[in-house]
């Protein structure tokens, strides 16, 4: 079982490389060798597609974790930029600071005014630090609350893009009330009188995720994950071995497919062939369509109906036996 994304993706990267080389050769080949070059390219492409088919047709829970965390996947701002026009990023919690792990602002989505909030990862070391690995601090959730309330005031649907390993667990976050901030953000999401849609685009990491995901509709990308605890953390507690993450991932049932079976999400958005990271254009379009449809399904509901829909949706969650 692959421990890391790199290890797991290796066969695919190798074929990608071979394919790139074949294309380079084709570019440099004289006209009379073009046919052979093209053939070679076609061969590699077919092999690549076969590999993808094999790898992605039997993704275990742990592989889903790896894919969901892949650094090549589109992040929140990639979706926002692809799907929205006139995005005006709004910042600040009006209390303490501005948290770059959560981005948000107003925009037009399909020409309709909306409020977008998302957890934002970084692609390189500087960005990752700037974004704190998408682990939001209290001020991030308080910014989100402010935007949710603004959306409520002006009748803007709320779109949440969920992608965080967890909320920030540091001492400073604790001292400024990370727990209160998450709880208050969930509360605000239940109190708004506007439609809300959340999409788990990568990692749905426990309290950090639900803090912006208590929405009327919750969608998950096919290879995203959603979990009460990071599998490594679960393994550390249960078996005192963080390395047993794969075992824990499977026990936790953290895949989109399990979440749907358990009745905890509304829909799975199928990713492009080979995953969202292999085709951003398609991935963003798919997410856009998912949000569109979800919003359309909420159109015409009154403020009260939207609130009640949200309440009943989460009210039902849980599996209980009576003795």
């Amino acid at each position: 079982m692959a421990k890391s994304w790199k290890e797991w993706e290796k066969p695919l990267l190798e074929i990608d490389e071979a394919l790139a080389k074949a294309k380079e050769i084709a570019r440099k080949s004289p006209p009379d060798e073009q046919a052979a070059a093209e053939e070679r390219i076609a061969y590699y492409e077919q092999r690549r597609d076969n590999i993808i088919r094999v790898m992605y047709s039997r993704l275990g829970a742990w592989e889903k974790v790896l894919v969901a965390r892949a650094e090549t996947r589109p992040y929140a701002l990639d979706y926002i930029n692809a799907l929205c026009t006139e995005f005006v990023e709004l910042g600040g919690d009006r209390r303490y600071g501005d948290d770059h792990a959560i981005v948000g602002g107003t925009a037009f989505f399909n020409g309709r005014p909306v409020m977008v909030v998302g957890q934002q990862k970084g692609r390189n070391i500087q960005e990752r630090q700037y974004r704190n690995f998408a682990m939001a601090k209290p001020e991030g959730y308080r910014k989100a609350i402010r935007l949710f309330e603004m959306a409520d005031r002006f009748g803007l649907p709320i779109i949440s893009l969920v992608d965080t390993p967890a909320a920030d667990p540091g001492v400073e976050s604790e001292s400024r009330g990370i727990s209160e901030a998450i709880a208050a953000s969930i509360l605000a999401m239940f109190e708004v009188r506007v439609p809300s849609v959340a999409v788990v685009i990568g990692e749905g990491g426990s309290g950090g995720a639900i803090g912006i995901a208590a929405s009327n509709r919750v969608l998950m990308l096919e290879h995203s994950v959603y979990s009460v605890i990071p599998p490594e953390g679960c393994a550390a507690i249960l078996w005192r071995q963080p390395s047993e993450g794969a075992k824990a991932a499977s026990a936790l049932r953290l895949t989109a497919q399990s979440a749907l079976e358990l009745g905890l999400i509304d829909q799975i958005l199928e990713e492009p062939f080979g995953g969202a990271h292999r085709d951003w254009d398609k991935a963003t379009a798919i997410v856009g369509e998912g949000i569109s449809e979800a919003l359309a399904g909420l159109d015409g509901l009154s403020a009260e109906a939207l609130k009640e829909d949200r309440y009943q949706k989460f009210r039902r969650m849980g599996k209980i036996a009576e003795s």
Partner: protein
Amino acid sequence: MLGKSKGTGLDGSFVQCAGCKKTLFKREFEDNLYVCPQCGHHHRLTWQQRVALTFDDGSFQELDSALRSGDPLEFPEYREKLEAAMAKTGMNDSVVAGVATIDGAHVSTAIADFSFMGGSMGSVAGEKITRTLERAAEDQKPAIIFCASGGARMQEGLLSLMQMAKTTAAVAKCREAGAPYIAVFTDPTMAGVLASYASIADVILAEPKALVGFAGARVSAQAQVTKVPDDFQKAEFGERSGMLDKIVERRALKQTLSSLVRVLGGGVR
């Protein structure tokens, strides 16, 4: 939990304080509401002890007692752990819910008991908390919830996480109905419980030195090089950080709750 009975010739008439480790007269310890007369350590209570110390005699009526977990994920060893906890505690899950009176005033209440799987919140605990808050909202009477939990129950996976949303939604119902909701943080109040219904009560009281925090102390310390205050993740730290209203010694808790219930429940809307 409680100071352990110390096997002495006086068959259990002595206990050892979990705080200062001193040996105490059991009778004196009980009369002092399970607070060490030497060091003030507030020992954890069973839900029955909490009921006895808080509500008018005989007023507590348990509700929803039949709810039990169904091991929805077939999580390794979960069933065994549940059965062991049931056998040990006589409870069906970590939270007991019901109605009671305090100085004659009706309240909806839930009491978490740490001795059942660390007070963890799965579907059953979440459901009972939700019903407790819904009853308060419906009857427009105050809710009092005693928290004691390590957090969400891992063994029910995402179902447990969703209890955070569900219980928080129930708090929203309380707010909308104008029903006061008072939370009492007892040792410990952590993670998924703290980050949901516990932290957004109208009034939050805490017992002295109760552990109150989001992440395990180890995680928090790893995550940052910041100097960690001595009372980090203690109720005192939470009070200083503005996260709770008041630390109340156990001897004063009933009176404080009683005042709050009568004031918050006595306004004119």
